[in-house]
């Protein structure tokens, strides 16, 4: 009879059947008939017009109708995949880009008779996140089933927390700069409605040419935190800043890796527009946004589209739209969930989730069995806002500089590593980090980690500068050389290119004299009282020395010579 297990038809489907003997199903996607694909006509995309900047909170100025201005309203629903070894309700491993269907337990495949067992780590991650977002943590939360049929949802329902989520009523402060000026930062707050624990679905891959859908259940059942933000934002940039701050918080906590490109952070935006004093307009939901940059673009496009639609006498449909990153616009989505009644029901196989604080913690309890909110609270790491404040306090840098440091992955660490190896003052170092390093990185679309100029190399370079062995402009040349990543040290480059400062005063005096001799007109002007022209001469000397002269010394020599 046991042998029959392998051969008997109708047991496991195709790919599964061979997996019967062991625990791990054969990693082949399950072919099933394709869904009916409704061809969505791609609308002629308007050129994505820039929405009037309203980061300051103002309304978008009136359109061509010339009536009252429009107020855009943006709310976000964010799904963050919990960073955990195993899934929310099963022991299967969580791993990105594993072979298809290789991380699927019997429960994940919803084999009949299997039951969910809550993963403590996921609960802790949600509590941690809730605390970091100033939420009140519900000591008793409940699980519900949300029903809909879809190929990558094997049970026909998702276990979520519809009625009583684990955390509610929080807030998230984020900053953004106005008009792209780093010096004009504003801090805003968005209310967090709730955080709920829920299962992720699997993935459907639609193979239209062969008219089939392939299902990969590796992701099915992975723990998600759904963070619901109230509609407190009013443009793409605000939403982008809020999401970036959330992402930093999640990464700091380690509760989610929150990498959007890997789908660990998925953002849906609810967008509507209305006139001031009037009720909110009909909203659309924009999905399929896979980077923060696109989030801002998608929202701004959608705001503009709605305004134009309304001003042209049209109406806004309560619909789901997808952002097309290539076209830069949103298009109506075939709505698999449109008008769907999810038929929510309490999940009968999971008792209420009870959390404790130190006060309510029962005596004689097995600490492995309970989650203590206070205990987690005490162990929260420094959040990004605290990190920024510390940077400002510790190094005397400007708040907006601390912002850039923290917001760029790995930049703070880079900065601190440079500081450790140089005598240069932090205030000067930050300039090199933000102006030189960062602009090179941006220019080459590199991350800090990928930078060919390591913190050691930069520190060496800055030390040369600090010891006045090279001038600032020479240092920039060295940096440019370092960026090539040819393995040379700053000192080697300096020597090779002969970028050392000219120490010999006589030599400098000769060069200065030559410049004076060649620029009679300028000399006349200076002598007539226009001291500013001196700077031009200094520049010329610099050029003549290829940046190897000390500008202070040059100025001294020039002034002395001119007054002779």
């Amino acid at each position, binding site marked *: *009879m*046991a042998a*029959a*297990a392998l051969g*008997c*038809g*109708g*047991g*496991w*489907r195709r790919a*599964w059947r061979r*997996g*019967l003997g062991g625990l791990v199903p054969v990693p082949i996607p*399950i072919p*099933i*008939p*394709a*869904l*009916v694909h409704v061809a969505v006509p791609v609308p002629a995309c308007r050129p994505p017009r820039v929405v009037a900047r309203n980061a300051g909170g103002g309304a978008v100025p009136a359109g061509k109708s010339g009536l009252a201005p429009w107020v855009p309203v943006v709310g976000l629903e964010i799904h963050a995949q919990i960073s955990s070894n195993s899934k929310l309700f099963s022991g299967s491993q969580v791993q990105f880009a594993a072979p298809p269907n290789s991380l699927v337990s*019997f429960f994940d*495949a*919803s*084999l*009949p*008779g*299997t*039951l*969910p*067992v*809550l993963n403590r780590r996921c609960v802790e991650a949600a509590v941690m996140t809730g605390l970091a977002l100033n939420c009140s943590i519900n000591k008793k939360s409940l699980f519900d*089933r949300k*029903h809909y*049929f879809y*190929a990558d949802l*094997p*049970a*026909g*329902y998702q276990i979520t927390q519809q009625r009583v989520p684990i955390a509610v009523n929080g807030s998230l402060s984020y900053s953004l700069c106005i008009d792209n000026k780093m010096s004009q930062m504003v801090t805003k707050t968005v209310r967090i409605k709730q955080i709920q624990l829920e299962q992720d679905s699997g993935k459907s891959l639609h193979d239209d040419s062969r008219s089939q*859908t392939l*299902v990969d259940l590796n992701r099915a059942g992975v723990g998600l935190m759904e963070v619901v933000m109230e509609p407190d934002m009013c443009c793409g940039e605000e939403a982008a800043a809020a999401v970036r701050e959330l992402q930093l918080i999640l990464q700091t906590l380690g509760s989610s890796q929150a990498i959007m490109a890997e789908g660990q952070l998925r953002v849906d935006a609810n967008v509507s527009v209305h006139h001031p004093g009037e009720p909110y307009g009909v909203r659309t939901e924009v999905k399929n946004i896979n980077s923060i940059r696109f989030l801002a673009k998608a929202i701004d496009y959608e705001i503009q589209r709605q305004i134009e639609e309304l001003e042209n006498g049209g109406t806004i449909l309560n619909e789901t739209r997808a952002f097309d990153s290539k076209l830069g616009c949103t298009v109506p989505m075939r709505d698999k969930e449109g008008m769907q*009644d*999810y*038929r*929510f*029901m309490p999940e*009968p*196989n*999971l*008792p209420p989730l009870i959390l404790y604080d130190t006060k309510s913690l029962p005596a004689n309890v097995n600490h492995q069995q309970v989650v203590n909110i206070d205990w987690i609270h005490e162990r929260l790491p420094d959040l990004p806002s605290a990190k920024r404040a510390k940077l400002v306090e510790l190094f005397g840098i400007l708040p907006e500089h601390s912002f850039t440091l923290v917001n760029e992955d790995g930049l703070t660490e880079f900065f601190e590593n440079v500081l450790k190896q140089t005598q240069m003052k932090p205030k000067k170092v930050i300039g090199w980090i933000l102006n030189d390093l960062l602009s090179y990185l941006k220019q080459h679309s590199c991350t800090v980690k990928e930078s060919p100029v390591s913190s050691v190399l930069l520190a060496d370079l800055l030390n040369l500068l600090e010891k006045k062995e090279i001038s600032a402009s020479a240092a920039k040349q060295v940096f440019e050389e370092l960026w090539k990543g040819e393995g040379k040290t700053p000192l080697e480059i300096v020597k090779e290119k002969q970028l050392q400062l000219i120490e010999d005063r006589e030599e400098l005096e000769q060069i200065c004299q030559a410049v004076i001799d060649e620029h009679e007109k300028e000399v006349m002007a200076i002598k007539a009282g226009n001291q500013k022209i001196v700077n031009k001469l200094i520049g010329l000397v610099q050029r003549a020395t290829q940046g190897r002269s000390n500008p202070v010394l040059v100025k001294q020599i020039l002034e002395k010579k001119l007054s002779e």
Partner: protein
Amino acid sequence: MLRASLRQVSAALKEGQVTPTELCQRCLSLIKSTKLLNAYITVAEETALKQAEESEKRYRRGQPLGILDGIPIAVKDNFNTAGIETTCASNMLKGYIPPYNATVVQKLQDQGAVLLGKTNLDEFAMGSGSTDGVFGPVRNPWSYSRQYKEKSVPKSDSEREEFKWVITGGSSGGSAAAVSSFTCFAALGSDTGGSTRNPAAHCGVVGLKPTYGLISRHGLIPLVNSMDVPGILTRCVDDAAVVLGSLAGHDPKDSTTIQDVFQPFELPSLPDVSKLCIGIPKEYNAPGLSSEILSVWSKAADLFKNAGAKVIEVSLPHTRYSIVCYHVLCTAEVASNMARFDGLEYGHRSDVNKSTESMYAATRREGFNDVVRGRILSGNYFLLKQNYENYFVKAQKVRRLIANDFVKVFGSGVDILLTPTTLKDAVPYMEFIKEDNRTRSTQDDILTQAANMAGLPAINVPTALSERGLPVGLQFIGRSFQEKQLLTVAKWFEKQVKFPMIQLEEVKGA
């Protein structure tokens, strides 16, 4: 030997009077000769003999695993059995071979029990007759007993054998018939609204529904998760206690099981009921209760009275709402639980492949019978946003009231409730199928369902034979997790009533 109780046969195995293999073979051959009963969907002959052989080795070494080692048992076909087809008597799961064992099955095997096969049921355990499965109805062994044949002389030709055989009740009818016809020494059923106790009553065996949460449901294909409990069917109360002891306790795979460690118990050989208070809930004298069962019930109350127990009438006022409340809660959970059967990962898949949706629809239409589809439809209706408050939430509130009725009664000093298990004795199949499944379930679950609503332990004890020579059982309902007290009372009662053994004649059709 096959008519012995589990404890007796266990002793015989230990003393070497019989070997596990002999015992297994005898059971297997009896299963064959009683095939007409249709009690088994799958007979796992090969694995059973292999398990028996293993058991035999242990006995030879003098190291049996315990009282269950070598004991042939049967399991309802809605429990997952690794490598053995598990169908729920549905086209949907025909040919489905699970890759894992239900916790209860694993526990039985770990203690050396020999799994003979999987027993018949109503499709997905939805029914009260064991008549609505895709493998056909189960026949009550008492149909072929001398007791029944003597008392029910056919009135005319049209009432000959084929029309006379009676149903087992359900939905665990296969398990009840298997124990009653001596093909196994114990069987697992499941009990959601009475599915273990009802067939136990009709087949004259002990049927125990333990407290919700005492036994793991992991691997039991669910009907109503919040009410399902694995049930135990045995020939006597002591055997039920043995099986309970081997199954009960926390299971990390089922979050609704109790955390405390369960201590298996033995029942006193001379139970005493004189200090107990027995409650007789008046609402259980329900419309349709046959006069002979009423009289059996009242005699039983007298037995307790005469033994010095306090017997008082009590009221469970919300009992009458139980049926309609159960209907809403049951169908809602069914709608949800059945959603997974979409033909993708396992089970039946329709050939219709125009689109995923059309494949779903065809698969589910082909895979489920009318009863299951009907419950899915009603359940989804009750769960619709506009209906949820009016139906589901209300039903949950009524469920709370029903549970509170019990809390009040037990809080007032009553130890055990005594009620009938069924309204009447088993009816002939031809009569039974005149009514539809829903009407029948409504009538048949009425006395057993409330215990599921409240999660309480309850047991059917075979009590007497009806005028037609068929078994009649009474039900005891106990306090939560007070199985020991419940079984002690049941054992005392069993000793008093001396229910006759079935005189099974040749099982053959007309």
